[in-house]
């Protein structure tokens, strides 16, 4: 390991892929029951498993065949029989090949068998949109899984949170779906590297990366980046935006969201998922049910439009949330539309 001087360590940034690498390595060193399985791990296709095969050996680091359904069900069985698998499914759209296993086995077995099963398994998959991958690789399907009780769901917005949540997920005895927003793989997802080796971020605890008094903007994954960029832009006009990042969608930190809306009276939710039954929809409904008295304007959703992802660069970007769409929504809830 390198021994960087303390001064540089303090300013070091941690990005998405490095966060995954560190979390997985630290937890595999900590607990030999943790194993890593995925497609093209040895080739290190996304850059998050460099050196793992050499360090942990072929029993604990396994390349999977193109068999998503069996891979997911196998991980469930391995978890029920004493291992703590991490499965790298690479692209979230591939989860659809294994829907029965996620729903019928991973999510239901503990409950259906009266609590006999423990299911310590983590499934990692990238939200691989915004880059010309077109409809078969670009889904943001986490809301579908929010509709399945028994799963925990994390959608982090920066490297430090990803690392801390992933470490918590690997130690959890419940199944966790870790969605990694690929629009944050670059600079947008970097954050100050945690100094603590035991950097654990709890599930169900939102972050407030920017405090404000006028409008609450709840961001999901890459939506947090848009929220922060919009907030910086609006600050120049004297609009004070508070940004809330739930970090985990199941469990959701409802008290933090409701407390922020109670303070600001206005809310915009930014969610890269498709609009209908999105995480944003659930958050908006919850605020209306539980925080109606504090609302001074309708809750607005800034989501992807309800279409499939088109290939052409001339078509794709318009369907997603953007900084501009967030700014427009904030102005609308404030009644200062231009």
């Amino acid at each position, binding site marked *: 390991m390198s021994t960087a001087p303390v001064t540089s360590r303090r300013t070091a940034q941690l990005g998405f892929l490095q966060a995954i690498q560190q979390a997985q390595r630290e937890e595999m060193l900590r607990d030999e029951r943790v194993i890593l399985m995925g497609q093209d791990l040895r080739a290190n296709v996304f850059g998050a498993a460099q050196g793992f095969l050499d360090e942990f050996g072929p029993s604990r680091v396994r390349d999977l065949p193109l068999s998503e359904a069996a891979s*997911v069900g196998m991980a469930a069985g391995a978890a029920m029989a004493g291992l703590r698998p991490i499965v790298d499914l690479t692209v979230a759209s591939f989860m659809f090949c294994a829907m029965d296993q996620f729903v019928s086995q991973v999510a239901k077995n503990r409950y*259906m068998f*009266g609590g006999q099963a423990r299911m310590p398994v983590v499934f990692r998959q990238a939200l691989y949109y915004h880059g010309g991958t077109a409809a078969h690789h670009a889904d943001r399907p986490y809301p579908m899984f929010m509709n399945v009780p028994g799963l925990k769901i994390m959608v982090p917005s920066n490297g430090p949170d990803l690392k801390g949540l992933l470490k918590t997920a690997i130690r959890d005895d419940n199944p966790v779906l870790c969605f990694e927003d690929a629009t944050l793989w670059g600079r947008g997802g970097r954050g100050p590297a945690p100094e603590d080796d035991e950097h654990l971020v709890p599930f169900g605890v939102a972050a407030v990366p920017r405090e404000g008094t006028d409008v609450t903007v709840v961001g999901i994954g890459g939506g947090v980046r848009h929220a922060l960029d919009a907030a910086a832009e609006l600050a120049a006009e004297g609009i004070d935006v508070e940004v809330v990042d739930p970090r985990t969608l199941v469990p959701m930190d409802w008290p933090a969201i409701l407390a922020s809306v109670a303070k600001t009276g206005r809310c915009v939710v930014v969610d890269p998922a498709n609009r209908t039954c999105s995480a944003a929809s659930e958050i908006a409904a919850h605020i209306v049910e539980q925080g109606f008295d504090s609302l001074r304007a309708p809750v607005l959703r800034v989501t992807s439009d309800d279409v499939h992802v088109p290939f052409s660069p001339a078509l794709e970007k318009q369907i997603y949330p953007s900084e501009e769409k967030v700014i427009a929504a904030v102005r609308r809830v404030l009644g200062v539309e231009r």
Partner: protein
Amino acid sequence: MDLGRDLAIETLRRMLRIRRFEEATIELFHAGELPAMVHLSIGQEAAIVGACLATTTEDYMTGNHRSHGHPIAKGADVNRLMAELLGKAGGVCKGKGGSMHLADFSVGSLGESGIVGSAIPVAVGAGLAADVLGNGRVALCFFGDGAANEGVFHESMNLAAVWRLPVVFFCENNGWAVSVRAEELTSVENISVRAAGYGVPGVTVDGQDPVAVHAAVREAVDRARRGEGPSLVEAKTYRFHEHAYGLRLRNPYRDESEVDEWRRERDPIDLFRRRLLAEGVAGEAELAAIDAEVRAEIDAAVEFARTSPYPEPEEAYRDLYYVAEVSA
């Protein structure tokens, strides 16, 4: 007899335990005490018991909607299984699984799946855990002829084969995929030949003969424990009752004469009982005593299930997530 006396007697006892357990569920059904239909294993007892007794309670097992026989043969407590069928608090799954989803982790039963074929990769995962942890256990995976046409069966066979996992794939081919003859829906006469496609041994045995089933599964288990990977064993058997007891299909699909013939000529319990007598393993009096003991066990199980209370409403909201116990 190749099984040896003790194992032969235990084989009969467990076959009878499945038969009497399920006969009791038929009575409970007609008495209006069962909350739902049940998928009976009557007629398939030799296949189930022959396979399970080639494993130990340390070994893992998964199964399907025809769920009662597997945990009974694996050694589960029939009281708690029966209470589960009645949806009672004393049920093995606290009344949340029911007839199609029995599980008893204390004897290695990791659960039966109401979705056909869905638990096949779960068994592969249990085999993976045994392999990585080096604990010498094997996973026995029950599925039917219908499930052999599910994609996940093929994915699972391939995965277990390439990683040489200690898994025994065990197909109860009862000849009927609900209402359609298996050969109309399945490309091969013997499902065991599909093993060749994955480079693993495959064998078809008479599923009405527990000795033949036991020998084939024993060999597969030994092979798995030696680290030589999975096998596929197919037992040709027959379902004596409707797909689900209480289910009324609009059109008849199999001749009553076919069912009658199997019941008359190929009842696995009758066949095995006669063989025990013929080979001098046991006498009439001993066999009658075993049956009486099993009947008493099942009567007690029904009594246990009837007197067990229903779960409290809040039980519906428990066990969704594991919650770590917080130390003071």
